[in-house]
């Protein structure tokens, strides 16, 4: 039931422990950690920079976190997104979903990630090993991943 935007690294065990401490109603904990990959479109990546709009980004993450909680009946959830400059292998995003039964925790975590990867107010700049840089364009495939949640809502 929380969202944070931070420069610092996060610790999965610590975040999960804080969410589950003292509770016995939670059966399932799903976490997703997104790491910077060492290549983009076949080119060796040197670094990835994430820029965000302070306050607005937090507010958006809180809103989608609350939506996931309601939609999937979660017992708890957390979104942590880092900003700044990262190297391949660095962890930049963490989603944690808690539920009674596992399917809703999986669904909610994937829903959150589909949102975060396409709509979260971040802008990414890739710096390549050859010295070139580029701002990443909005990707259609991530928009498609998000669209299936809208479609499933319409079917209900």
């Amino acid at each position: 039931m929380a969202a944070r935007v931070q420069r610092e690294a996060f610790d999965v065990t610590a975040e999960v422990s804080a969410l589950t401490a003292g509770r016995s109603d939670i059966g399932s904990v799903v976490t997703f950690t997104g790491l910077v990959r060492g290549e983009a479109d076949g080119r060796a990546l040197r670094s990835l920079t994430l820029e965000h709009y302070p306050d607005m980004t937090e507010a958006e993450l809180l809103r989608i976190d609350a939506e996931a909680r309601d939609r999937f009946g979660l017992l708890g959830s957390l979104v942590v997104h880092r900003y700044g400059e990262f190297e391949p292998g660095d962890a930049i995003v963490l989603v944690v979903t808690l539920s009674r039964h596992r399917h809703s925790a999986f669904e909610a975590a994937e829903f959150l990630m589909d949102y975060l990867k396409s709509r979260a107010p971040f802008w990414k700049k890739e710096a390549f090993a050859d010295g070139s840089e580029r701002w990443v364009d909005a990707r259609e495939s991530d928009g498609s991943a998000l669209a299936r949640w809208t479609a499933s809502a319409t079917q209900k």
Partner: protein
Amino acid sequence: MSDSRTDAAQGQTLTVRYFAWVREKVGCAEEVLEVPVGVATVGDLALWLAARGPQYADAFQRPGVVRAALDKVHVKPAAPIRGAQEVAFFPPVTGG
């Protein structure tokens, strides 16, 4: 330019923020403006900025590409500026 009789914002002080490649093209992250005469909506402001110089023209040249937020809420170009503290221009978000 919109009808400014009811939406008039001129003289109002506004913080304008730029992000990602819009920021790089404009050459600054943030500036404070007095809203010019005839600028009533976010779209009006983008057009006014685009006419301000080559860097701005470059940043705003692709119509429909640059997105905007008013007081940290995503808005369409037709959104009236009146009463707002802060407007931001940025590329489509690329997600986390």
